[in-house]
C-alpha cells in the first residue's frame, strides 16, 4: 500500500511503451471519429428523408448505451458473423462508433446555430448545397465547436483504457501486467494514473492555446 520507486524504475520502459500505444489508439480514433462525426452530424442536420432518421437513431442509441458493452458486442459478436477482425480494429471501431456519435451531436449543434439566412444568401449567389456546406456551414460550425471537440479528445483518451479488456496492451493493461508480475498495485496504478493525467494536461494546454489564438482572429459575427 505504498509507492515504491525501484518498481517504477524497473518497469518504466513498459509504461512508456503502453503510453505510446494509448497515444496511437487515441490519435487514430480521434481522426476517424471526427471524420465520422462530421459525416453523421451533417446528415442529421440536412434532413434527408430516411437517412437522417437512421443517423439520428444511431446517434441516440450509441450515446445512451455503455461503451464497454459496445466494445464487447463488436469484439465477441463480429466473429459470430464470420467477420474475423483483429482486436485493434474492433477497438478502434467501437471507439469511433461511440465517440463519433457524441461528435456528431456536437457538430449538429454547431450547424444548427448558424442563421438560416446564410443558406439563402449562398443559394442566391449560385452555390450548390454541397458547396454551401463545404465553404460556409462547416467552417463556421467547426469554429464554434472547436472547444467541445478538443474536450472530446480527452474523453477518447480516457475511453482507450477500456481496450485493455479486449487484449490490447495499452497503458491500463501495462499497469495490470506490472501489478500481476510484482504485486505492487499502488505503484502500478498510480503511475498509470499519473501518465494519463499528464496526457490530459497536455490536451488542456492545447485547448487553452487554440482558444487564445481564436480570440485574436477576426470572426464573422
Amino acid at each position, binding site marked *: *500500500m505504498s509507492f515504491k520507486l525501484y518498481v517504477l524504475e524497473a518497469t518504466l520502459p513498459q509504461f512508456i511503451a503502453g503510453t505510446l500505444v494509448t497515444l496511437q489508439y487515441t490519435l487514430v480514433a480521434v481522426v476517424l471519429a471526427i471524420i465520422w462525426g462530421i459525416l453523421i452530424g451533417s446528415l442529421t442536420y440536412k434532413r434527408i428523408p430516411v437517412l437522417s432518421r437512421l443517423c439520428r437513431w444511431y446517434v*441516440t*442509441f450509441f450515446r*445512451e*448505451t*455503455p*461503451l*464497454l*458493452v*459496445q466494445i*464487447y*458486442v463488436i469484439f*465477441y*459478436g463480429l466473429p*459470430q*458473423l464470420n467477420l474475423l477482425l483483429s482486436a485493434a480494429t474492433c477497438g478502434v471501431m467501437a471507439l469511433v462508433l461511440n465517440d463519433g456519435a457524441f461528435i456528431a451531436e456536437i457538430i449538429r449543434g454547431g450547424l444548427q446555430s448558424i442563421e438560416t439566412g446564410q443558406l439563402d444568401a449562398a443559394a442566391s449567389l449560385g452555390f450548390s448545397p454541397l458547396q454551401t456546406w463545404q465553404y460556409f456551414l462547416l467552417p463556421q460550425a467547426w469554429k464554434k465547436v472547436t472547444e467541445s471537440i478538443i474536450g472530446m479528445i*480527452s474523453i477518447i483518451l*480516457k*475511453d482507450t*483504457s*477500456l481496450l*485493455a*479488456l479486449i487484449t490490447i496492451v495499452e497503458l*491500463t493493461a501495462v*499497469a*495490470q501486467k506490472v*501489478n500481476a508480475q510484482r504485486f505492487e*498495485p*499502488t505503484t502500478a*496504478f*498510480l503511475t*498509470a*494514473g499519473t501518465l*494519463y*493525467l499528464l*496526457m*490530459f*494536461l497536455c490536451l488542456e494546454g492545447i485547448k487553452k492555446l487554440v482558444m487564445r489564438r481564436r480570440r485574436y482572429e477576426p470572426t464573422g459575427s
Partner: protein
Amino acid sequence: MSLQDHETAIVALLRFGLPQTLKLIGVCVILALAIGIALGIIRSFRIPVVDHILGAYAMICRGVPVMVILLFVYSSLFLGTPYWTAVATLTFSESAYVMEIVKGGLWSIDKGQWEAADSLALPKTYTLFKIIIPQVFLITLPALFGQLVLLVKGTSVASTVGVIELTKQGQFLLSSYSQPIVIYGYVLLIFFILCHTLTSISDRLEKNIRRKILGEGHE
C-alpha cells in the same frame, strides 16, 4: 437459440443483473449528490488552499480513466467486496462532476440578487432558501441529469472487478448460449431503456425550466 432461450436470457438479465445495476446507481446517486453538493458549496466560497485541493481533485477525475481508478481502489485499498469497490470508485468520480456543476450553478447567480434581497430587508436564510437555491436547482438540473446518464453507463465498468450487474450477467449467459450479439444486444437494450428514460425526463424538465426562467414562448 430458441424462443424459450431468449426468454430465459432476458429473465436472467432482469432478475439477477438489473437489481444490482439499479442498486449501484441508487447508492452512488445519493452519495455523489450529498458529497458533490457539499463540496460545490465549499468551492463557491473560493477559500485559498481548499479550493486548490478541490480543483486538483476535479482535475484527477476529469483526466484519469474510471477503469484505472477502479483497479487502484480494487487492488490497493481492499474495501472488502467488489460491490463497495465499485460504489467507492463511481462515487469518487461522480462527486467531482457534481461539485463542478453545483459550483458553476452558484457562480451563475448574480451577486446583485443578494444585494436586492438585502435592500428589501429579507433575512439571509430566507434569501438563500427561497431565492438562491431554487434558481441554482433549476439551472443545474439538466446538467445533473446528464451526469446521471453517464453514471448509469459507468456502472457497466463495475463488471470488470466482479460486480454481478447487467454486463457481468450477460457474460455469464454467454457460457450457456454462445450468442454474444443476442445476449449483449439485450444488455445494450436494457441500458438504453434506462438512459433514454432519463434523457427524456431531462429534456422535458429543461423545456419547463426554460419557460419558467424566460417566460412563455422561449423553447
